[in-house]
Structure formats: structure tokens, C-alpha cells
């Protein structure tokens, strides 16, 4: 058992996958960085991506499998699709999910559809690793989460781990998966850590996790929101309110059964999602609950999300934008009185 950060757990999963399967390759902007050409030895592998997550891979596995790309997401995302169809298992890095717009066609119209549209004869086993999340003072174009953008598309799978344990286990699974997977890493979670067994087995996609058992209120928390849900639950425990925290972990497929079981137990539900509210995971999960568990509900589902605005830059505004522990506590108290 070792304590690992999310960042290191992801690097471990990549190294392990590279060692296990020679068909795994990695492509992205600055994933090595520096001067990769032979005549300039010494400065290569300088970055390992903007957060250093892939550092060491180029040195360890070489430029054939770890490919720094031009700033041309449509080009190398398309290439990942063709490479995946013909036998490789490419991982591509979308530096920030906010850049989805410049290569969304490749994911929406090709990666997601070629299997279905061409009669089920081919598969696209590729993974898009991307960085999401606010709270980094990074402004409107480097801070979004956009979970629902990809979850909306049939043919794509969407994974968003909270801790290092899930990050490693789910990334191992995502790379082995035969469908295109969007693997979302939260920039504010990279340096958080927990125990991760060295021999951790892949965690199947579509299985959520009860992070805390409780009996009064169910909090369904999306990725970083698990942190605030946990803080809120600790506070509320002091006044004898028992919260159950459900972390779905993957959004397509979604572990609906796990959510419904918890809702049946407590009858009171809060969904916490860092995304904008309209057509979000929060609205989807809340609608599923009212459709499938209406008679178990003792109150309407409460959604705690960001407002319907871009992510603002200035700290007071950005902190206001992100759902908070206090908002969760207030919502739980409101439900408790129902």
C-alpha cells in the first residue's frame, strides 16, 4: 500500500499500460515537451504536459510511442481514430477540455459513430485524457468541466475520477476498453492523495461507489464535488444528520441502480455538479430519479451547480461560481426539516 497523488496514480496507470500492451501509444501537445530532436539531447521530456502528468514516458518508451504533436487537435484526434481502428490503443491528450471545440467533430461524428454507422464491423479503442475544472484562476477558456457535452453523445464513454485510487483503476480500464473513452482529470485534484495498492486491478466502467454510508440524505457528488460533500457530511454529523455520498465515477455508462438504491433508502437527494446547470449531469440524474423513484422521494431533488455563466477569473467571483460546502450543508438542513 502506497500513498499516491492523483497525478502519480495516472502516470503509474500509463506506465503499466505501456508495459502491458505494446499497442498503447500516447499523442498530445507538450506531453514530452522540450526539444525532442536528437541533436538537442538534454532538454527533451521537459514538461510532461502542462501538469507534468506524462513526464518520463517519452524517456522510458521513446518517441515512436510517445508523440509530441503540433497544436492540431483535429489532426491527431482523427489520427487516433484511424490508429485505433487498425489495431493500436491510442491515448490522446486534450490539454484542457475547453479546447473540445476544435476537435469535437472527430469525437462526435467519427469516434462515436463509425462502429454504429458502418454496421458494427470496426471498433475504436481510444482514450481522450483531458483536464477539467474551475478553481485555478485560469479564466473562462481553461476552467470548464463540460461533462455533459460528451455524455450526451451515444458511442462515447465518460469517466471522471475523484481520488487517486479511482484514477488509476479507471484509467487502466479505460485503456483496455474497446470503445472511445473520455477520461476527465480535475486540475484541482492532481495533488490530492490517498492509498493506492501497487497491484490495483482495473475498476470496471459503469460502477459507482458509495463513499460514505448514511441514512438521512443522499448526496450525489460529481468528481471534485465529493470533497465538498465529505466536508459537509462531517459537519452535519456533528448535529446528528447522516449523509450518504454517492460518487457515480463514470457518467456514460451511469450506475443508475446504485443511485436508485440510495434514493430508496433516504428519500432525500442533492446532486452536486460543478458544471453549468442547463442540460447537465445534475439535471440528467435528477430527472432519472424523478422518473424511476418518484414514490420514494420525500422532497424534490435539489441541484447544486455552477450558475449559467462562463467561469469568471477574479477569485471572489470564481469562488462564488463553484458549488461550496456551505451550499451543500444548507441544502441538507433544508431537506432534513421536510
Amino acid at each position, binding site marked *: 500500500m502506497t500513498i499516491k497523488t492523483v497525478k502519480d496514480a495516472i502516470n503509474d496507470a500509463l506506465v503499466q499500460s505501456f508495459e502491458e500492451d505494446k499497442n498503447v501509444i500516447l499523442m498530445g501537445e507538450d506531453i514530452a515537451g522540450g526539444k525532442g530532436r536528437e541533436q538537442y539531447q538534454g532538454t527533451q521530456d521537459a514538461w510532461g504536459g502542462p501538469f507534468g502528468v506524462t513526464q518520463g514516458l517519452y524517456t522510458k518508451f521513446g518517441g515512436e510511442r510517445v508523440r509530441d504533436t503540433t497544436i492540431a487537435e483535429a489532426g491527431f484526434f482523427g489520427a487516433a481514430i484511424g490508429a485505433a481502428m487498425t489495431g493500436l490503443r491510442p491515448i490522446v491528450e486534450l490539454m484542457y477540455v475547453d479546447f473540445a471545440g476544435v476537435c469535437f467533430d472527430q469525437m462526435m461524428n467519427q469516434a462515436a459513430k463509425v462502429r454504429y454507422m458502418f454496421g458494427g464491423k470496426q471498433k475504436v479503442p481510444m482514450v481522450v485524457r483531458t483536464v477539467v475544472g474551475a478553481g485555478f484562476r485560469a479564466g473562462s477558456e481553461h476552467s470548464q468541466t463540460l461533462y455533459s457535452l460528451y455524455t450526451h453523445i451515444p458511442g462515447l*464513454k465518460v469517466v471522471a475520477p475523484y481520488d487517486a485510487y479511482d484514477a488509476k483503476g479507471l484509467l487502466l480500464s479505460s485503456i483496455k476498453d474497446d470503445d472511445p473513452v473520455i477520461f476527465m482529470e480535475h486540475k484541482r485534484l492532481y495533488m490530492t492523495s490517498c492509498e493506492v495498492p501497487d497491484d490495483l486491478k482495473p475498476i470496471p466502467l459503469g460502477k459507482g461507489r458509495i463513499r460514505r454510508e448514511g441514512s438521512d440524505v443522499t448526496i450525489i457528488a460529481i468528481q471534485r464535488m465529493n470533497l465538498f460533500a465529505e466536508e459537509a457530511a462531517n459537519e452535519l454529523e456533528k448535529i446528528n444528520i447522516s449523509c450518504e455520498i454517492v460518487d457515480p465515477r463514470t457518467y456514460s455508462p451511469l450506475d443508475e441502480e446504485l443511485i436508485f438504491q440510495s434514493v430508496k433508502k433516504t428519500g432525500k437527494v442533492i446532486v452536486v455538479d460543478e458544471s453549468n446547470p442547463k442540460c447537465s449531469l445534475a439535471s440528467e440524474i435528477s430527472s432519472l430519479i424523478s422518473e424511476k423513484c418518484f414514490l420514494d422521494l420525500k422532497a424534490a431533488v435539489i441541484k447544486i451547480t455552477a450558475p449559467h455563466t462562463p467561469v469568471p477569473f477574479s477569485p471572489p467571483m470564481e469562488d462564488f461560481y463553484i458549488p461550496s460546502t456551505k451550499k451543500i450543508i444548507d441544502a441538507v438542513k433544508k431537506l432534513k426539516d421536510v
Partner: protein
Amino acid sequence: MIEKEKINWIYKKIFTIRFFEERIKKIAKEKTVPGYLHTCIGSEAICVGVMAALNQDDWISSTYRNHGHAIAKGCKLNEITSEIYGRKTGICKGRGGSMHISDFSKGMLGSFGIVAAGPAVVLGAALQEKINKSNKTCVSFFGDGAIHNGAFHEAAGLAKLWDIPMIFVCENNGYAEATATDWHLNTKELSDITKAYDMLSYIGDGNNVFEVYDITKKAINEAKQKNTPIFLEFKNYRFSGQYEGDTQLYQPQEEIDKAKQNDPIKLAKENSSKYGLNKNDLEKIINEAKEEVDKAFDFADTQPWPQPEDALEEVYVNYPVEINR
């Protein structure tokens, strides 16, 4: 010198495609099939000439104007027609339609409805060939309209940077949808656009199937030898509209008449004796092609429709939750 068997194959395919597309024009007029139809009348020599230089398991990508590529790449006529008719036994089980005729088992990575989607996908297949040190040829077909799209340029840049020996095949048929090429081109020659990437390019007569074959074959050898992508521009004329039903008011009659002088079928017929086909051989090939096409359309008409719920299949390889109905 091209072997006799290949010449027969070329002639058979070129006529098959023309008859096929003429039949499509007919059913489009009769409105007996669902959906958009795009025919490739005028592109037959490019489809057949390029494919004659490929092996069955080489990789290609195509577009929504794909019937000719699919036929030349060896897709079964019955399965193509059944797909166009929306039947369960179609090449894509009725889920693709005319714009997406593609058979992975015949080396087709896909027929994409999005202009310029193909080059990057083929780049990936070619990258895979390079990494696995195998030697399949990788070709992306696209039209003149695609060369302004960013996805094409991103693929071209990466292909050159990574020394990927793929072949870009641009069918310059004079029109990007309803916009004439000379209205949208900002270089003297279309293929000048590759100069920014220091990429080799060749221009050929897209109406002459043997010239297309020759240029493609040489380009494949050169690309592999020099480890470099090559851009081929074949000039031809799009006799069809953008889609069936297009009034084609933007294509002047004198332009069409002039283009007819160089119709690829006409040229193929004129060249037949030069390639050792006598009148009887040619007639036999033409009749066989016609008969096979007619049979394939008759076959499609007898095929079963898919069940509505078949729509839920094969979205994923593996999805542990039931797809919502």
C-alpha cells in the same frame, strides 16, 4: 505493361460504377428510395485507377460520394444496393445509407459525411502501419472542397512532420457543392496548397483511368521509398449535381458539353484496343457489368427491412447498462 487480368478488372469496374450511378439517378427520379443520394458520374476513372494500384487489404477513406470507391474497393454490389434501400442485409445493416457505404473488411476505414474528416483518420492508420512496421498503403479520398478545411491541413502537417507515407487523393471535379473551384481556390493550382508543407504533389488527368493508375502506382512507391506523404490531384468533371435533385443551374450547358469530350467512360472505350481489348471483349465486359448492376438493384428490392429495435444495436462494443429506449 499492365497485365491482361488487371485491364479486364479496370474495364469491368469502370463500367459497373457508371451503370450503378445511372441506376441511382433513375431511382432518385422515381423517388423510390429514402435519403440523400450523391452520384460520382465523371469520377469513375479516379476510383478505379487509384484502386487498381492498391491491394484488397490496403486502407482507404471515402466521403459521402462513395459508391465508386466502394465498388472499386471490392464491396459486394448486393450489399451496397441493400444499404442504399435501407435494408437489414445492407453493408452497414441499414444504419449508414448511401452516404456511409463502407466495409471495414474490404479496407475501408469509413465513408464520412463530414468534409475533410477522412485524411486525419487515414493518417492514423498509416501511423499504425509505420509503428507496426507493416506495409499496407493508406489513401484518403476527398474533393476539392475539402482542401480549405482545417482538419485536412492538420493531417497534412502531421503526415509530413512524422514522415508518414500516406497518399492524399484530391478529386478536383470543378465544384465544391455548388461553388465552382475557380471561385474558391486561392492558389494557381489546387495542389499548390501542399507547398506550405513541403509535400510532394502530382497533378493528373482524372478522366484517364490508366494515367490515374500510373501516377498512383508511382506515388505509392515513391512515398514508401522516401518515407513521405504525397498529394495527388486528379482533375475531372462532376457531371452529377452535388446531390440527386440538384437543379445544377450553376453548371452551364457548354461546360457540360465540353467536359463530355473527356468523359472517362468515353476515353476508356477509345483506349480499349490500345490495351488489347477487341470489340467483342469490350462488349462482353459491358454487358456483364450492366447485368450485375441490374441484378443488385433487383436483389435489394427483395430484402427485408430492419426491425425498429435493431436501431439499438452496436452503439458500443460493450455497454453494461441497457441503452435507453
